[in-house]
């Protein structure tokens, strides 16, 4: 008797779950009838799933069908009525025909002035509306990343996307494709590489002004990080190396709009990276949303727009480390309570 291998066991399980095509079913049936071990596995799986058979199909109440059909009728009539009203209104409209629009120079100038006035008065509100739209879009993207994180975790026995790294390694070398695990964006790159989150979701729409920036998806499988900084305009939590510090952390920050301290990263990875904290860097918001604030994905999956960099009960600055004025791109927080996102 040939022992049943892993693939055959999967086939039997899929067969029990009704997830096999016709030819696979035939294969599974053949295996079950010929191999006693396969038959035993089959019977045990069937026995384990048997209680599920006890839940019969739920019968939809007629009243619910009636209620649904009534609502659909009302909706259809409302749309039909709206359409009829629109057509009637359009047909009733009188369209004045002007034969001499450019009657004289004065009228032309008045028209031009009116156009300039209207355009000028519309630019500001339109720009404002666009900012609001991008802010919301950015929040939706962060939620998609959260969803991707959950799916990844579910598929990997609860593990978060993580590449092995050594404490003290630089975390700022975004786009570095070498063997060493430099840059903390390599962890989230696994989400894109594995198809859990579309790469476009890592670019804040406000930062890119709504422009779509794409790299060759065919090459994505070969990359070990986002190919360049412009493809990832968020900052990610840097974890402490001493997680059992005992500090109470009320809110965990997972991802935020770009940290203003690390906006400009050297393109030459062999160069040293030093950022000195000054008064401006210590106070400005992320540039993603014109300095008005930043969207932050918190550990509970919620995304909020914070008008300042201070988060949680302790009002911790997420863009800086406590008691640190010079950054070389290898720093980690001393405790869980010191929230820090980079680069």
């Amino acid at each position, binding site marked *: 008797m040939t022992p049943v291998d892993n693939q055959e066991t999967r086939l039997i399980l899929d067969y029990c779950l*009704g997830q096999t095509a016709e030819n696979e079913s035939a294969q599974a049936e053949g295996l079950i009838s010929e191999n006693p071990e396969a038959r035993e596995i089959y019977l045990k799986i069937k026995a384990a799933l048997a209680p599920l058979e006890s839940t019969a199909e739920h019968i939809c109440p007629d009243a619910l069908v009636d209620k649904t059909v009534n609502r659909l009728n009302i909706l259809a009539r409302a749309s039909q009525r709206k359409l009829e009203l629109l057509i009637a209104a359009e047909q009733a409209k009188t369209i004045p025909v002007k034969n001499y629009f450019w009657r004289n120079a004065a009228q032309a100038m008045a028209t031009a002035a009116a156009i300039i006035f209207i355009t000028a008065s519309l630019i500001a509100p339109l720009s404002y509306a666009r900012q609001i739209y991008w802010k919301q879009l950015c929040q939706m993207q962060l939620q998609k990343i959260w969803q991707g994180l959950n799916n990844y975790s579910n598929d990997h026995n609860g593990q978060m996307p993580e590449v092995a790294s050594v404490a003290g390694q630089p975390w700022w070398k975004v786009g570095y494709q070498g063997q060493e695990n430099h840059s903390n964006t390599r962890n989230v790159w696994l989400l894109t590489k594995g198809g859990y989150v579309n790469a476009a979701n890592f670019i804040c729409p406000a930062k890119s002004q709504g422009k779509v920036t794409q790299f060759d998806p065919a090459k994505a499988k070969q990359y070990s990080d986002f190919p360049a900084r412009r493809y990832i305009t968020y900052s990610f939590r840097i974890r402490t190396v001493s997680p059992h510090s005992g500090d109470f952390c009320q809110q965990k920050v997972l991802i935020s709009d770009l940290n203003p301290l690390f906006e400009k990263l050297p393109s030459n990875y062999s160069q040293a990276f030093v950022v000195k904290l000054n008064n401006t860097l210590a106070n400005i918001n992320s540039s993603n949303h014109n300095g008005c604030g930043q969207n932050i994905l918190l550990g509970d999956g919620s995304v909020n727009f914070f008008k300042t960099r201070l988060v949680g009960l302790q009002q911790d600055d997420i863009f800086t480390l406590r008691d640190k004025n010079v950054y070389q791109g290898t720093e980690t927080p001393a405790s869980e309570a010191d929230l820090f996102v980079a680069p």
Partner: protein
Amino acid sequence: MPLKKLTDAELLDKFGDGDETAFRELVTRYKNSLYTFLSNFLNSRELVEDVFQETFIQLFTSRESFDPTRPLRPWLFTIAANKAKDALRKQHRTAALPIGSLVDSEEMSFGDALNVLTSYETTPYEKIEENETATRVRHIIETMPENLREILILAYFNKFSYKQMSQILSIPIGTVKSRLHAAVGRFAKEWKALVESKELK
């Protein structure tokens, strides 16, 4: 032609024109499978009824985006699954997901699931009163994590294929497979624990 003989696409076309009989036929065609899915997935009858109606309303309002060359059933269940998840989220909005739940996932590997599934020596539910079984099964399903519950219901009760579930839930087929294996493994584990607790008594 009698409505019963129309294809889903033809029916949806009439449905889109506001034909009341088409509404009724379409709702009737899918009422029990959709109601079964929602009843297993949601925890209150009120929510089930709301989401049931909202699903068909959404089907009507987004009818223009439906590709008539594709089957309607997965599309209808995509709408229903999304609506049901939204409804649950609204219901639990105040209860935040702790960060630990990301790390301490409830899922198990294929090997673990298989170990549980093949660890039965007897038909396990014979030990429990027949009329009690359905209630207990429902309770186990209700208390499963949302992502496992939905996949188990779609696969086991609604008989969707891996490919269709991948489309409905917008997740890769590999994820669908591993999640379904984890779901049946978890169900079997909890059922076994229940049976054993009965034996002890």
